[in-house]
């Protein structure tokens, strides 16, 4: 089938099999930041935005992006670089494999959470992003500093 969509702001069209998953479609189209970690929607590695909302691309049919806007980390390089400074200074990137999906969700969290999010709200928002290297503790240090720079003060529980 034929689909028309916006990928990282650019209008494109493609001929696809109806059963193709968005994850495979995006990697076939050069979006290598999108990773597969589990096939069971449990790890968050394949997080992308569909119309600015985070979705797990392993569980979305490519056909569903017809007429829609898809954003991957390739389309958010300036925002990713800004966040990367905070993450790198804590050594929190580690193996990096979960980073793109995590960053995608962090960037959408910044837009969606209030100006005074609690630690519990942050953990809940990002709960679907697994990481096996860091134990998540450094993530919170990173997020406190990053959110402060964005005018958001993390409240203790």
């Amino acid at each position, binding site marked *: 089938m034929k689909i028309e969509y916006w990928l990282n702001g650019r209008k494109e069209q493609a001929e696809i099999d109806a059963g193709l998953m968005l994850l495979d479609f995006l990697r076939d189209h050069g979006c290598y930041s999108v990773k597969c970690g589990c096939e069971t929607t449990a790890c968050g590695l394949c997080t992308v935005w569909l119309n600015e909302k985070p979705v797990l691309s392993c569980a979305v049919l490519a056909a569903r992006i017809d007429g829609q806007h898809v954003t991957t980390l390739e389309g958010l390089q300036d925002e990713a670089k800004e966040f990367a400074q905070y993450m790198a200074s804590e*050594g929190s990137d580690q193996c990096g494999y979960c*980073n793109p999906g995590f960053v995608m969700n962090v960037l959408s969290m910044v837009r969606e959470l209030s100006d005074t999010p609690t630690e519990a709200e942050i953990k809940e928002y990002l709960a679907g992003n697994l990481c096996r290297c860091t*134990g998540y503790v450094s993530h919170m240090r990173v997020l406190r500093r990053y959110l402060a720079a964005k005018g958001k003060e993390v409240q203790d529980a």
Partner: protein
Amino acid sequence: MKSVNQAVMKKDALPLITGKPVYTGDLAPKDCLIVKALRSPHARAIVRSVNKTAALKVPGIECILTAEDAPKKRFTIAGQTYPELSPYDRLILDKQIRFVGDPVALVAGKDAACVDKALRMIKVDYEVQEPLLDFRQAVDNPIVVHPEDDWNPMVPVGGDNKRNIIAQDKEDWGDVDGTFADSDVIVDHVYHTKQAQQSMMEPFQAFTELDPYGRLVIVSSTQIPFHVRRIVATALEIPKSRVRVIKPRIGGGFGAKQTAVMECYPALVTMVTGKRAYMLYTREESQTVSSPRHEAEIHVRIGASKEGHIRVISVEALWNGGAYSDHSPTTVTLAGHKSIPVYNHTEAFRFNYTAVYSNTIAAGAYRGYGATQGLFAVESAVNELAEKLGIDPVTLRLKNIVHEGDVMPAYFNETARSCNLEACLMRTLELIDWKHNYPRRVLPNGKIRAAGLALAMQGSAISNVDVASATIKVNDDGFYTLDIGATDMGTGCDTILAQIAAEALECPVDEVVTHGVDTDTSPYDSGSYASSTTYLTGMAVYKTCQTLIEKMKEKAARMLGDVKAEDLDFTGDAIIDRATGRQVTRKELGNAAMITNDIALEATETHFSPVSPPPYMAGAAVVDVDPGTGEITLVDYAAVVDCGTVINPALARVQAEGGLVQGIGMTLTEDVIMDKRGRLQTNSFMQYRIPTRQDVCDIKVEFAPSYEPTGPYGAKSIGEIVINTPGPAIAEAVHQATGVYFRELPITAEKVYKGLKAKKEE
């Protein structure tokens, strides 16, 4: 120090965080054949025949390989120095199936869709056999997992395949039985840990191709490029000169990728077809046909005087190797050697072990490598001893722990040249507010808050075995390239080793470019495992810098004329004639090396160590237990680590936090469940529950550095030790809360509930 002990950013941080294509799967050429395996649903069977006629007709299928197509010489996929202690007991494809998931056929085709279709169309005729699933029944069981006559131990490790024994040994030091007979108090218990999964975020993957010289090139997510070269060459029966292994960025390993779990499969396809081949394991494959921690049953006995002197420790370990021997003979030795020496004032110790075959997933290397299981058992037993003696667990430990300068009989008679364990313990107690939280109190909400602690040790590289090397070159304008064979798998060793080089060469870290690993060009390194990289490769880097500085002086002397190298001083930016003050800058030196030159401005040094200095640590947990439901909430965890000099405090801290949370997962949520036919039910992240960020409390990590004289700038290791304390510390906290001992991991709410119920009924 300007570069060492600094929180330098990882050199690869920006590309990783911004999602650049740097991993094996991102680099695999588009024209690779896609390779998948057809796997046995039976735990034990003989493959009578494979009918692939229909499957071969699927458009796009290139080949379907079965046991007939694979070489017939046995090998091991354990990533260890040759000759490996793990017996050669594998074939790439074997007619004898030994566990659920053993491969029957490899299918290669132009895309995943056609391969999936072909996999469904292959008809296998199995002669299903009764499996041996309980490793406790393995020794001398009529079911023999490896009946073959070509089972091949390269090194005698006490194994006997006809008896299902992979490795076995007994060691007594001092009068063990006499000391037990003479002890006032004895604790005697059996502890059980399961086949925990590393669960690194990047599944196993590799692609293979033939280069213009017809050589096999393997690009793999591996911790052990040089071992993979040897293993694949051995498996395919081709000369090692025909194999080249390249490691790009790795999405985590934790020991899983210290085994060549799957490189042989695409390699065989490429050798047969001459075409590029790519294989990516699913998460299910990564959890069920990989290389988890060994399941262990450990019998611990400790004898003590009534005053609390630990006089004798006995550790008897039974180790479930699963279907193949990978890492069994080596991991099991750590169960005793890296637990007993924590209590170094014993008069005697015993360490007996047996590693056995069973028809379950073959176990491998996972962070902690056997020490984790041993320390869960010994530390739990020491906590039980404290209760039995009526001495608090801190006092008991202060009376008995190892100190700097001690000779450690249970650790190959090595001397603890650097040891700050007592400081680790005391600071941990402060961080966890031990006085307030130990032993227990009832909270207003009815939950019981309690605390527990544990100690740990590990090693730094394998003494007298591991080899590390570094090559450093001076380039244009005097920048350096550092070539290593050690593999950065996210731990940051490319950066840490550059920090060590920058310290020695007195230059900014940015002027040292790190490159690794390509087995054709990188200097030899055993690989990144056994907590070896900072300690051993770090020392190789340090030595290389010293040699390089001498060469740079030699070249500078030639340039200055009329002066000897020994009269020159190296300042980092320049080389200066002490007498006259005349100098050659590093920039001039680098550029001069590229015109009319016959002094190679590069150096390579190799290093091994006759000792493996243990890092030490203490960890303590505070938990809330709901007596109504058995639910355990981890409220607080604190740990203090003595890893010698901390080369990079930010990276070391994250290593510690990450290792602790893996240990917490192993203790509370990561359960391995097998059905009656040997199928793993915990085959995805839905069933095998690694911690999410909502499961993790605040974790406090500090360092209590010692100075290790045999390490680079005093450093020891940190990567593995950090997983070892949560098991026994949390188990003790839960015991304090409930009055029930939990001697099996994980400790789930169900087990606590049942334990409390049984206690009530007593």
